[in-house]
């Protein structure tokens, strides 16, 4: 009598990952289509939306020709796709540069901010969630629950403003807005676009500390929201895991509480937790838009809001497309991580 069921390891897992990957082009395609429609079909005059109110008549005529606005919509879409394939997101009225170039300039700063924020959130949130679950009902647990709830309800931009007010203005312990003090402007060669990293690589430690000090506030503000989510989800997952029968079996084996908590309970939640972290990171991109506005952080969020105020359609759509794609990519990573790490899905 056969005792072991072969769960058909490799082929099934491969097929499942394949279907995940297959959905990405559809989603990206949808994103591209939606941004295209927003750019062409929604505004009253798409050309004015792109070139602004003050453009001369021949500029308007040229752009109209370029976009093929006299052609049917799907031909326009094809032209749009062609441009995209070349990496051409159009020209920005605000900066007079190609949008693609703008994005390459601004994106690293957002990456620096978001990555720092998620690292803080995970480093603090996961242990907090685990300990809160281990001591369910205690004072610590209640405090953690309340703080998480509050963290999810606070508008990020208000938190940012209040932090600036308290720490910069009243207490003077944090630097003001921007990525760096005016003193250090242009002193550190731009390698990655992330000032902290660039300063470290260049060995300019004064600039390094200054950049780090400037990074601290916006990163912490951005981290608070994701910290709340990660703590809450970690706690919820842990509570569910700790209610499992295998935990009783582990206790019956006479194992230490620490081992049961981390090796058994936490070991079981790592996979859904990674998914949540990836999704939270994606959500940080949205929070970044607001945080960068408050702290004048030169990232893609600031670029987006700037182009919104200037009604610079190309820039808006270009930034939307890029942020949206990263978002989709992170969602996919979260999905794949699940399949790779969960032995049950193998």
């Amino acid at each position, binding site marked *: 009598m*056969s*005792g*072991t*069921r*072969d*769960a058909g390891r490799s082929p099934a897992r491969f097929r499942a990952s394949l279907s995940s990957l297959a959905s990405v082009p559809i989603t990206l395609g949808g994103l591209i289509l939606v941004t295209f429609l927003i750019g062409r079909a929604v505004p009253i005059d798409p050309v004015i939306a792109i070139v602004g109110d003050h453009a001369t008549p021949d500029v308007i005529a040229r752009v109209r020709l370029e976009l093929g606005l006299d052609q049917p919509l799907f031909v326009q879409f094809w032209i749009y796709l062609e441009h995209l394939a070349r990496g051409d997101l159009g020209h920005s009225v605000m900066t007079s540069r190609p949008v693609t170039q703008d994005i390459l300039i601004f994106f690293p700063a957002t990456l620096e901010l978001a990555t720092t924020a998620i690292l803080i959130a995970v480093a603090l949130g996961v242990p907090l969630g685990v300990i809160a679950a281990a001591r369910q009902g205690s004072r610590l647990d209640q405090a953690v629950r309340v703080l998480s709830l509050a963290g999810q309800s606070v508008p990020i931009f208000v938190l940012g403003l209040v932090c600036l007010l308290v720490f910069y203005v009243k207490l003077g312990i944090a630097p003001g807005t921007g990525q760096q003090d005016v003193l250090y402007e242009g002193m550190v060669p731009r390698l990655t676009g992330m000032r902290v990293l660039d300063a470290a690589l260049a060995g300019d430690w004064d600039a390094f500390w200054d950049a780090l000090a400037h990074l601290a506030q916006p990163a912490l503000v951005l981290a608070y929201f994701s910290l709340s989510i990660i703590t809450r989800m970690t706690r919820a997952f842990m509570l569910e895991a700790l209610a*499992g*029968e*295998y935990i*009783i*079996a*582990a*206790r*019956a*084996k*006479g*194992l*230490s*509480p620490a081992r049961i908590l981390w*090796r*058994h309970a936490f*070991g*079981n939640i790592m996979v859904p937790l990674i998914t949540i972290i990836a999704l939270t990171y994606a959500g940080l991109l949205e929070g970044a838009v607001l945080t960068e506005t408050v702290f004048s952080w030169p990232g893609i969020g600031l670029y987006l809001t700037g182009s919104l105020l200037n009604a610079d359609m190309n820039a808006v759509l270009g930034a939307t497309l890029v942020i949206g794609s990263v978002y989709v990519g992170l969602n996919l990573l979260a999905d794949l991580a699940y399949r790779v790490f*969960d*032995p*049950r899905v193998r």
Partner: protein
Amino acid sequence: MEVIVRNLRIAFPSHQGMAEAVRGVSFTLKKEKLGIVGESGSGKTLTARSILRLLPRQARVEADRLEFDGIDVLRADEAALRRIRGKRAGLIMQDPKYSLNPVMTAGAQIAEAWRAHRGGSGKAALAAAVELLAQVQIRDPRRVALSYPHELSGGMGQRVMIAMMLAPDPELLIADEPTSALDATVQAEILRLIEDLVSRRGMGLILISHDLPLVSHFCDRVLVMYGGRVLEECRASALARAQHPYTRGLLDCLPSLVHPQRQLPILERDPAWLGP
């Protein structure tokens, strides 16, 4: 090794006050096989788990005596209890689908139990795990050791569970409905395995089940529980001469080839059995 339980009471807080799940259970156990029989809700699982104090956090446990080999289980601290659990008494649970950790291999879980109480290197523990899997009559122990619980059948999983709990070489084994989740054909095998291992190692056994004939077959003594109380206690061989109407009712409604009946009698529950 002696387990002494006197007047065990377990209650849970509920919206209507305290709900009593176990109401004054008493028994003693030496190096023998004790069966505890009862329907769902009779309190048998709670009673057995209270010996190792493995109850849910909100449970309120009281007893005149609750001792494992002279150690007062009620008043012992966690560290003392951890010295009993695993090393001196093991617990086998009903469904290996849930009682084995899904993200650890079978071998790793057995090795963990070994190492926690016998020390040694990881390699030695894993080798011991493979050896134990062979003892529980698994044909390809090395492959099973590297498998995850969801890849194993019910019978296999239960054997892993047994191996895991026997790894520290305990004196007592508590088997909480070990075969209820298994196919009928596998049930007998697993029980024979348990009986064999327990006899060879000279262990005590508490076998919990809702299946009266099964328990009477494998155990020396039988406890019949209902509504949190022990209604009857007798030697397994003397079960046919049981006194209490509940036990008699259970026995009478068993179909028999030797004394076939046209209609099986229905067990009439007397509220008096729930006591004052």
